[in-house]
């Protein structure tokens, strides 16, 4: 890491951000390896405010590692992450929600023992101001806060067609439904930046189309900037404003869907294979 003397370890004003336009997220020279495996190799790209930004690449390309580095679950070996005007060598996961960032996981990361509604409402718990005692006693402020959080959670359930599952323990639901619950939990706090790691994996065509609509609404109406990891090239091409392509931890392409479609390096490394795969995959 080549830190200039003025760089504080965690925080820095946005004035020195690498590019002119304000971006919701920027990663700069991000590298990360596990033992001998290089998961990320000097990856740099930006996500503009209000953009739907897809990240694609074959399995093991480093897509999830990228999101994990951005959410502070992995500590990069070098490089920096810019989030909401701050630059981080390692993003503090505890502050993610306060920074307006939320995410979903490639493998479900739900609270299995809690109901769907409680799972979604948990996405707002970090905002509650009432202390434990106020909650236990049931002071009016605590009650109001809680009711408000649950109202918002209910609205999200309606948005993602989850009302029927509302009181079910989330562990008992089908995979596709659980995926939607996780998206609801991520959306309920109205994040400025939403990181989605394969939200449509294991979904039927109809479910994918529905979710595509939801993601678009999340951006258009809820004002979330979205980073989307997705394998379905059809979905990616139709939904995203720009696409970053990773292969063996390197950024091998970055541009509009049109540009990516015609990028020879990308076609060689990935798209050709993916189309073959998709043809064979069916639903």
């Amino acid at each position, binding site marked *: 890491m080549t830190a200039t003397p003025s760089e504080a370890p965690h925080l820095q004003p946005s004035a020195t951000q690498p590019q002119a336009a304000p971006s919701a997220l920027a990663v700069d020279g991000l590298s990360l390896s596990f033992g001998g495996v290089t998961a990320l190799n000097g990856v740099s790209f930006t996500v503009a405010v209000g953009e739907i930004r897809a990240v694609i690449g074959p399995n093991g390309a480093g897509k999830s590692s990228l999101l994990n580095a951005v959410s502070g*679950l992995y500590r990069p070996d070098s490089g920096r992450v810019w989030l909401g005007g701050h630059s981080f060598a390692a993003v503090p996961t505890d502050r993610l929600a306060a920074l307006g960032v939320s995410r979903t996981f490639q493998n479900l990361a739900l609270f299995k023992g*809690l109901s769907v509604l*409680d799972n979604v409402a948990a996405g707002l*718990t970090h905002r509650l101001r009432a202390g434990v005692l106020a909650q236990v006693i049931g002071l009016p402020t605590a009650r109001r806060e809680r009711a408000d959080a649950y*109202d918002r959670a209910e609205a*999200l359930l309606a948005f993602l067609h989850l009302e029927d599952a509302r009181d079910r323990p989330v562990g008992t639901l089908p995979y596709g439904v659980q995926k939607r619950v996780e998206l609801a939990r991520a959306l309920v706090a109205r994040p400025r930046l939403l990181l989605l790691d394969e939200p449509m994996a294991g979904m039927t065509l109809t479910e994918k189309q529905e979710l595509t609509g939801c993601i678009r609404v999340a951006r258009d*109406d809820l004002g979330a900037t979205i980073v989307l990891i997705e394998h379905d090239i059809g979905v990616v091409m139709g939904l995203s404003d720009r696409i970053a392509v990773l292969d063996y931890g390197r950024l091998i392409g970055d541009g509009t869907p049109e540009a990516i479609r015609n990028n020879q390096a990308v076609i060689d490394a990935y798209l050709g294979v993916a189309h073959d795969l998709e043809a064979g995959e069916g639903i």
Partner: protein
Amino acid sequence: MTDLALDKPVPPNAAGPNRTAPTARRGMVRPSPTALGVGLLLAVAFGLLPLVGSEYLFDAILTPFLALALAGLGLNILTGYAGQVSLGSAAFMAVGAYAAFNLSLRLPELPFVVDILLAGLVAAAVGLVFGLPSLRLRGFYLAVSTLAAQFFVQWVFNKVGWFSNNSPSGIVTVPPLSVAGLALDGSVGRYLFGLSVVSVVTLVVWRLVDSPTGRALAALRDHETAARVIGLPVLRLKLLAFAVSSFIIGVAGVLWAFAYLRTVEPAGFNLDRSFQILFIVIIGGLASLRGAFLGAALIVVFPLALARLGETLLGGLFDSGVLEMSQRIVLGLLIIAFLIAEPAGLSALLDRLWHRIAGRLTALCSRLCPRSGSNRSV
């Protein structure tokens, strides 16, 4: 899907009946079976039993049952709700018992209710210290580190005579129970005292596990990484779980010493006791308030029932050695059976039984009077 009401501010009364917590919600229309059941239980426990119960019932069954159920409740917060394993429960019981003993001995002007609260707080403080490893350790390793609490605390109470007022045997007799000038040192008095404490604590615990903080504890248990990502204060929650759990277990220790045994000695709070409390939680059902009571009932009644049964079947052959051995064997088998067949414990077993009975009843009802079925759903 495009019709999204999220942007509009939510009117204060928009969600109608859905504004309270899910568990409370169900009870809004009419008293739920749970509320009725609890009310009935309390009426019997406070009103009827003291009139009809025998000394044996209170001293050998109900009072120890209450103390152990309370300890189970405390451990359940930590293990069942927050997902942190502990093998040191008896240590916190000991801290509570010794703290209350020393408070009543050295500060006799304090009312006993204050002694209990302070004893709970001392136990909470000790629990907080021994909860610190949970910030780094998980699962098996955390369990082993809580064993340190178990052995260290027992060692201290054995070693430092001051705690037992330098009693040569290490066994101290606690002063007779009296609250606000009311002598409660009879069997019924001690039982009623225990019952009152347990009722109040259970109410508070129910409010806690039903609160957003309670949900956050469960979130932490189910997926710690996701909990951190959504901004839950994971470290604070873990320490809170240790503190609250130890507080309650400490109060259970006070009941054990003052209401049940009327003596305190370190050996009464050994590893066996810690395991006993863990078994109560496992057999009763993790993350279930009811579970602590069901588990404690089984643990208390089962040895007595086994002794009776053994005596009836084998007569003189069934001495105390055989009894103890058979208790351990049967209890061990029971725990294995529960872990395999019903990990959710007696509480879930009871739930299923209840649903089956309720199903039969409604089926019967709708056959007898077909109309009544239609207005059941709200």
